[in-house]
């Protein structure tokens, strides 16, 4: 479904992604993890068409974002790390605006919005101004925005960061449900929580894929320790640089 083939990206002379290659099948939840500065956000930004790679190709169901950007972007839902939203709008207004902007026909807009509000547990706060939402609800609204058009691929940058345990569980429930009809690629550091619902882990270190783990092939506790060790060694490397 999603093929990432030898992606390389640099900020000036600094190589941030170096020959990144892996693929994602429908229904998979792939966690991209690594130390800070490993290139997780940059990889997601390349996949979301926010950055153009220096070399390599990305294909979503054979659609190349460089050749057919609108068609590719129609197939993705993206949640940014800082979860930006229009604060003066209400939850429902914001979601309606986003659905319309993504090209949904007028007759279907209301249904899409109400479905997604319910799916993300936002139906009770649909008239709340975005600026009054807590971080957890803001993330849920961002996730609702990413999910609302039923994309084939969900790209989520640090969806669990800054959330308390109940909010994390809620996000995990929504993602597990969403993975029934979409592939999910997410970046994050919350290894033990992600192990509960992710199917694969991709470890990045200084822009390179250093390990790929299929969760079912390992004992979860062992895999958690292994991943944490790898991230810690990456962090040591970062500090040592």
């Amino acid at each position: 479904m999603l093929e990432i083939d030898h992606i390389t990206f640099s900020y000036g002379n600094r190589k941030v992604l170096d020959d990144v290659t892996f693929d994602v099948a429908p229904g998979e939840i792939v966690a991209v993890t690594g130390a800070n500065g490993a290139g997780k956000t940059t990889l997601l930004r390349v996949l979301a068409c926010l950055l153009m790679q220096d070399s390599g190709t990305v294909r979503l169901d054979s659609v190349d974002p460089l050749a057919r950007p609108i068609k590719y972007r129609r197939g993705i839902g993206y949640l940014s790390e800082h979860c930006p939203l229009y604060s003066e709008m209400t939850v429902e207004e914001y979601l309606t605006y986003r659905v319309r902007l993504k090209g949904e026909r007028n007759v279907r807009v209301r249904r899409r919005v109400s479905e997604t509000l319910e799916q993300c547990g936002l139906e009770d706060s649909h008239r709340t101004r975005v600026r009054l939402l807590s971080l957890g609800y803001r993330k849920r609204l961002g996730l609702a925005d990413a999910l609302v058009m039923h994309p084939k691929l969900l790209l989520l940058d640090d969806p669990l960061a800054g959330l308390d345990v109940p909010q994390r569980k809620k996000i995990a429930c929504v993602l597990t449900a969403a993975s029934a009809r979409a592939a999910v690629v997410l970046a994050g550091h919350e290894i033990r929580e992600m192990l509960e619902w992710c199917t694969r882990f991709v470890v990045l270190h200084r822009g390179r894929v250093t390990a790929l783990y299929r969760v079912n092939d390992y004992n979860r506790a062992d895999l958690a320790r292994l991943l944490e060790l790898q991230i810690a060694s990456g962090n040591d490397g970062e500090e040592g640089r």
Partner: protein
Amino acid sequence: MTAVQVTWLREVRAFRGAVSCCVPVAAFLAVSGWTFVMLLRHHEGSVLQVQSIWGISVAPWLPILSAVLTMRLFAEERSTGMIDLLMASPIRERDLVVGKFLSAMTVIGIAVALSLLVPMVVLPALSAPVRGSVRAVAFAVTFLILFLQASAWCAAGTMVSAFFRNQAAAAVSSLVLCSGLPVAVYAVILAWVPSVRMEMAWMPLLVHVYDFSTGLFSTAVIALYATLTVFFLFGCSKVVACLRLRG
């Protein structure tokens, strides 16, 4: 609804009730009204017609209003990070740019139309021959040239806004581009070739307004402002597209 319409609607709603919109529009109305009254007094008994005085009193303030209204269009999106969500959406950059530009033009159109209130209030106080010479169509044509000028300033402001994350920096740069640069070029021409002063007693931008208000219609002038508008909007969509390259 198309992406242009959706963007236009969202931006118009954001303008509505925003301090960054109401205060500049109120200031524009106050200052253009004051200029109109001053010019009317100064040109009492001259051949200058009411619609020309109105046009000339509004035109110099349009670049400032445009710069202040357009400063947030892209700079705000970039500073909040909303630009990422917009660019990850299945819409073309030019739709985004046109939608935002049209929203600023809507506000400016309303502001220019509201500035007509001052001439309408003053008109009954003028002498009968002056009142009799006033034609609605002359005001409509003056409105057209003001709108055309505003569209060029607005397009320039929209483009400049895409370069910055800071709104104030965007506004100052727009002002330099739309107001400072033409005035500087005019001053340089007059300083360099003093003989031109006879033909260019007024800045060409004001001459265009005066000509249109007196019925001297020029397709070249219309083409000039339309070209400037298209050029800046095209530039803006390219600047937005280039954000993908820079990261």
